[in-house]
């Protein structure tokens, strides 16, 4: 986790760091700004030179713009031309204007005996980490989270506030006039660099494990049902629900408010559109949408 850092650097230093050329006069940069709201001595990026906020720039002094082409001479700013303005912008912000937040286990976090925490793990106020939990290096668990059961979280993961990883699962069979809970012996395994938004829940597996691959990014308010598997680098946007034992392949994109019926398979590289209700498997690379979800685009080639 990083936080903003009040610093100043010369545009020429940023150019040297990015190994690009500075066009226009050198200037002092104090920090990043949104392109539409530049302030004096800031750095912005635009993906297209035509998107340059010229009138706003005329009212500000010393703005550095990262953009695909050098800003023409006489423009009210200096520029660094780069084919990847956003990436270079992020690199420069991380290098010069943010710093890592020092890891901390908050005195009001509860870490049960037996839990194994790697180096630089942060567990913030009000969070609970159960005895059978293992957490990798540099992972941060924000406030009021519950991590319990047999859970292994990789390195550099982020769990935002109020999320539950583990705990009891919602899986019952009706027997003898009452609902019986199924056995709950599965684990939760989360790969490195995974990211979970606020108020998200991941259920442990009943008999198999719930597995979240490395690099998976999960937005706020997402529920991942028991025994589900999410492949490397997939994205699950806000408000989506994966019922029990769903499989999502690698590099999939699940848009906000998607529901996926239990045991369905979303194959690699597919896209599930906004609000879709998935009741059938989604083929590799396809785009599906609607209720019930239908394929609207197949993989090319």
């Amino acid at each position, binding site marked *: 986790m990083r936080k903003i*850092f*009040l*610093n*100043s*650097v*010369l545009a*020429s*230093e940023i150019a040297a760091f990015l190994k690009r050329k500075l066009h226009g006069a*050198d*200037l*002092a940069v104090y920090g990043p700004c949104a392109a539409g709201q530049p*302030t004096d001595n800031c750095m912005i990026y635009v993906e297209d030179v035509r998107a340059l906020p010229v009138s706003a720039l005329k009212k500000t*002094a010393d703005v550095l713009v990262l953009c695909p082409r050098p800003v023409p001479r006489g423009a009210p700013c200096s520029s660094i031309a780069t084919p990847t303005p956003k990436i270079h912008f992020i690199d420069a912000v991380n290098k*010069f204007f943010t*710093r890592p937040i020092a890891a901390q286990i908050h005195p009001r976090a509860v870490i049960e005996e037996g839990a194994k925490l790697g180096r630089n793990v942060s567990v913030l106020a009000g969070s609970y980490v159960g005895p059978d939990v293992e957490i990798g290096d540099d992972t941060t668990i924000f406030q009021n989270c519950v991590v319990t059961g047999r859970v292994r979280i990789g390195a550099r993961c982020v769990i935002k506030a109020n999320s539950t990883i583990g705990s009891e699962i919602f899986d019952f069979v009706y027997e003898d006039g009452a609902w019986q809970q199924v056995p709950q012996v599965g684990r939760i395994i989360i790969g490195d660099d995974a990211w979970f938004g606020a108020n998200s829940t991941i259920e442990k597996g009943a008999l198999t494990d719930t597995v979240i691959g490395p690099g998976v990014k999960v937005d706020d308010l997402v529920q991942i049902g028991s025994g589900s598997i999410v492949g490397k680098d997939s994205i699950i946007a806000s408000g989506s629900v994966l019922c029990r034992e769903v499989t999502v392949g690698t590099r999939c994109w699940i848009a906000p408010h998607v529901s996926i019926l239990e045991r369905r398979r979303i194959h690699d590289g597919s896209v599930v559109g906004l609000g879709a209700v998935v009741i059938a498997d989604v083929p590799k690379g396809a785009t599906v949408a609607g209720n019930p979800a239908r394929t609207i685009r197949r993989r090319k080639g």
Partner: protein
Amino acid sequence: MAGAKAAVFREKLTGYLRAQLSRLEAAHGRDSAEYRALALQYAKSPLEDRHAGRGERERHYESEVHIHYDGKPLRGVERLYRRTILIEPTTVCAAHCRWCLRGQYPLFSLSEDDIVRAARYCGSAPVRDDLREILITGGDPLMVPQRLEFIFTQLRAHAPNILIYRIGTRVPVQDPERVSKDLLGILRAAAPAKIEIGTQVNHPSELTPEARQAYAALYEVAFKIYDQTVLLKGVNDSVDVLSRLYDDFRYMGIEAHYLFHCIPMKGMAHHRTSVRRGLELMQDLTSSGAFSGRAKPMYTVMTDIGKVSLYHGVILERNEDDEVLLQTRYRVEDFKRRNPSWKAPASAQPDKDGTLRVWYPDGADDGPAEAAHEKR
């Protein structure tokens, strides 16, 4: 940077200073001493564009002696005294003080490589036997905390002989928000070396609650904060203002070090009082029982050969060019020992006993401090 050519000295203020100006204007009006005390320090005046007067320099005296290390000159580094070396990591300041030549320096900042070499030099034999202190100026070093942190780590690694890191800054009165937890953490991490802060406040109205808080926070990591006020016409050339200012320093624990006579630079005549005016003010301050003797600064001018503190008797004579001849205790032989090729500047003349007298361009008390149309 020594030898660097002057760039256009444009107006530069922080959001904080702009807010202070509006606040002072709303509270006291545009003609008030409070408002003008700040406006005169930062607003570009047409009077700056007047031609250089007699004796006024385009650029202020600075030693041009370059230090060489490993066969290459060290950038941004100067040996000040036997025990002290100076390093300028940046030429960026939060705001441009109108009378200061430093704000005119072209943008520049030391690379990590420059810093590593400077630190190695400081810790190398035989330099390390003498060197105990590093003066970090600029520009304003608190504008570049990341660089400052790098300087500290390099000094710790290569020059443990340096016991005091002295930092010159005006950030607390220009952009106090920058005295952040991160910055304080970086300063604290200089230990076991000690941090000393040199600052410059010219009027009590600069000591807002925010600025006071920033100084108090700096005092948690610095073993000393001292001030070098510049005597500025219309800002602080009155006993009342100066005694309030030095009183405030006293209670903030800030040591009153120098009261500088404003340097004779081109475009600054309207900021300069006469040398005599400063002496009168000093006498009113120091010999009137007005406030604590613990809070008295040294009234000092910056001459071509170095600083000269003024007492009655130091001014020997005045010529028709409005220059005053000052008796100093600088000695030719000391300069020559430090730098065998040293030659006395034209303004300096040795006495029979080898001490130097130096001509210093005086200011005038009768001229305006701002252009007529600036007063509204």
